[in-house]
């Protein structure tokens, strides 16, 4: 019964969750001027270009994830570096 009440309570007050999610989302979306640039896409391209200068890494081996929070956002870049020595080029 208690569990039922708890679930029921949560179901009813979904509006505050909606409010919080929107506030976090819109705070980030508003920084995109005119909707023409996409921060994550730009970062992905530029990060890929930097990596390509030093290593031959397939695009599929780079994972870029963004986690947006109310006060802190994190950008996680996961690069799978090839083990073969031939895969690493000397820096230009």
């Amino acid at each position: 019964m208690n569990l039922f009440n708890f679930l029921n309570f949560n179901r009813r007050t979904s509006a505050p969750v909606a409010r919080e999610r929107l506030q976090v989302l819109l705070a980030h979306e508003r920084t995109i001027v005119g909707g023409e640039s996409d921060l994550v896409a730009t970062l992905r391209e530029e990060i890929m270009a930097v990596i390509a200068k030093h290593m031959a890494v397939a695009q599929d081996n780079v994972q870029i994830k963004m986690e947006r929070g109310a006060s802190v956002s994190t950008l996680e870049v996961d690069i799978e570096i090839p083990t073969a020595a031939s895969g690493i080029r000397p820096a230009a």
Partner: protein
Amino acid sequence: MAKVLVVTSGKGGVGKTTSTAALGAALAQTGQKVAVIDFDVGLRNLDLIMGAERRVVFDLINVIKGDAKVDQALIRDKRVDTLFLLPASQTRDKDNLTDEGVERVIGELREKFDWIICDSPAGIERGATLAMRHADVAVVVTNPEVSSIRDSDRIIGLLDSKTERAEKGERVEKHLLLTRYDPARAARGEILKVEDVLDILSIPLLAIVPESTEVLRSSNLGAPVTLGSPNSAAARAYQEAVRRLQGETVVDVQKRGLFSKLFARRAA
């Protein structure tokens, strides 16, 4: 001095066309000369909501292409004689909706009308950007629902950057029209409250249109709700919106029982 008003939202299905018809008719009933223009090329519906679907001869694209004069394309409403409709084209020649063409048509209408109301299509493509392009005033139609609010926020950004006024360093006067609002559900925390939406979007409130069966009934009958069911709560909300658009400070919202007691203060 003519005013160009855009009714916009980003998201589809929130009530842009219903609101365009209702606001246009209510404004025209105050004696103002009003033209409502459907910008949804290919998916016109304002003619249907206004009950003029069988009287369309020429459309906006015909006027832009020079096939017809603006006076030939305008359809006078049978109920309010200061209300006119410029329908959209039903064929898919969206490319004919040009920046110069729209500018010329709006310019001509400014000479003849007090209010020009542009019914924007959903989305942020050409039809939507051209509908807002020459606006002096914008009514952002929003439902108390996350995707609608997000899209409205995006549209507000475009109103502040992509309109003629914005490019001249001037401001488009923006108003929020909250539609399909159910105060009982908001009180139970099931949907976002008025103040939440206002807080997130930070533009002034024009009116709250409650969820109402009269809106559907009127559209079934081909009448703007302000003409088809003028005493309904929805029609009264639109009438109130019109008074605010005309610069009137509406302090005392019409008696609506609990609804007015809850929201009169915030709607002022």
